[in-house]
């Protein structure tokens, strides 16, 4: 099974360019696109002597591999100037972060609010679920942080993330069992993400 990571764990990982086998930046922050409810990209920090915010960003589409130890890109050429860039613009709009958004089931229950995004590592990596702080609608799990799988399609707005009520049956308490939950959930929905 592929490795699952919280987006918050991706912060501080080095960005390694494969062509020169060098660490060319550190991940500063994960930039979420609220419209799609997924990761758009990353803001970066310089490494070493010039440590501090880098005036470049990395788009999710340019990531070729994401593991527990590094975020991989083909070359430094894919690091784009921050100015006039979609990821840079999103990073400047803190209120667009998916973190804190309410998660509603299409059965009409508020399941909780998003505390983190779960990413399945690989090449390319994939967003497969959310960590949410469970609401009272989730019974005994209320108040706890649980993991809910993401369907292949997801309705989002500035107000809430809408997931099928069926997702509730595949909620997991930790990452150990979550990979299987995602697979079973998507299998039941009859679709996989592209």
């Amino acid at each position: 099974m592929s490795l699952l990571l919280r987006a918050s764990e991706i912060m501080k990982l080095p960005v390694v360019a494969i062509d020169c086998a060098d660490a060319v930046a550190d991940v500063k922050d994960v930039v979420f696109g609220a419209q799609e409810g997924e990761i758009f990209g990353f803001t970066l920090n310089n490494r070493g002597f010039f440590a501090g915010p880098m005036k470049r960003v990395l788009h999710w589409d340019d990531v070729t591999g994401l593991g527990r130890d590094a975020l991989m890109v083909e070359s430094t050429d894919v690091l784009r100037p921050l100015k006039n860039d979609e990821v840079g613009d999103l990073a400047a709009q803190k209120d667009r972060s998916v973190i804190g958004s309410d998660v509603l089931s299409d059965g009409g229950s508020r399941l909780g609010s998003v505390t983190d995004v779960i990413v399945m590592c690989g090449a390319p990596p994939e967003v497969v679920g959310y960590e949410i702080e469970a609401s009272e609608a989730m019974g005994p799990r209320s108040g706890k942080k649980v993991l809910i799988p993401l369907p292949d399609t997801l309705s989002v707005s500035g107000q809430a993330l809408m997931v099928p009520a069926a997702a509730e049956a595949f909620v997991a308490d930790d990452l150990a069992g979550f990979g299987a939950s995602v697979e079973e959930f998507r299998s039941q929905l009859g679709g996989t993400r592209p």
Partner: protein
Amino acid sequence: MSSLRNLIGRKVMDRGRAEQIGKVSGVVVDTSSGDVRIASLRLSGAGDEHEFADWDHVTGSGEDAVVVDGVDNLHPPRTTLEERLKSGDTELLGKRLLSDHGNEMGKVDDVDFDGTSGRIEHLVARNDRIEGSRLRSVGPYAAIVTCPHEGGCPG
């Protein structure tokens, strides 16, 4: 099969004069094609003008010595890879081994190579032997290999 760890420090002899020229201090590995191989040797004790020997000029690599076909064929660094080895960037032994999926796999403990062709057969890390053809690049941060696990690195 030869060991890179054993090769380092081995004396280098000039075939024509039967004299020691220096010792092997490093190897330049060319990963630009799927046929990953030693491109040249770096020598210590031979002087700045005779710091590198192309593998094509190595006539033999045995347990006791590496033999090259003439000191005239030695040269200062003249490729980017040789310049980078000189700065320590592309040293393989002891380097962090990283899969192209972003997972560390230990450090490069040794490298098995073919003593005749210079072809890299395996990278040895922990108890794993990773095919040399999987080596994609060597740089200041890591030696990067194509992930050997189908469907992604294990968690």
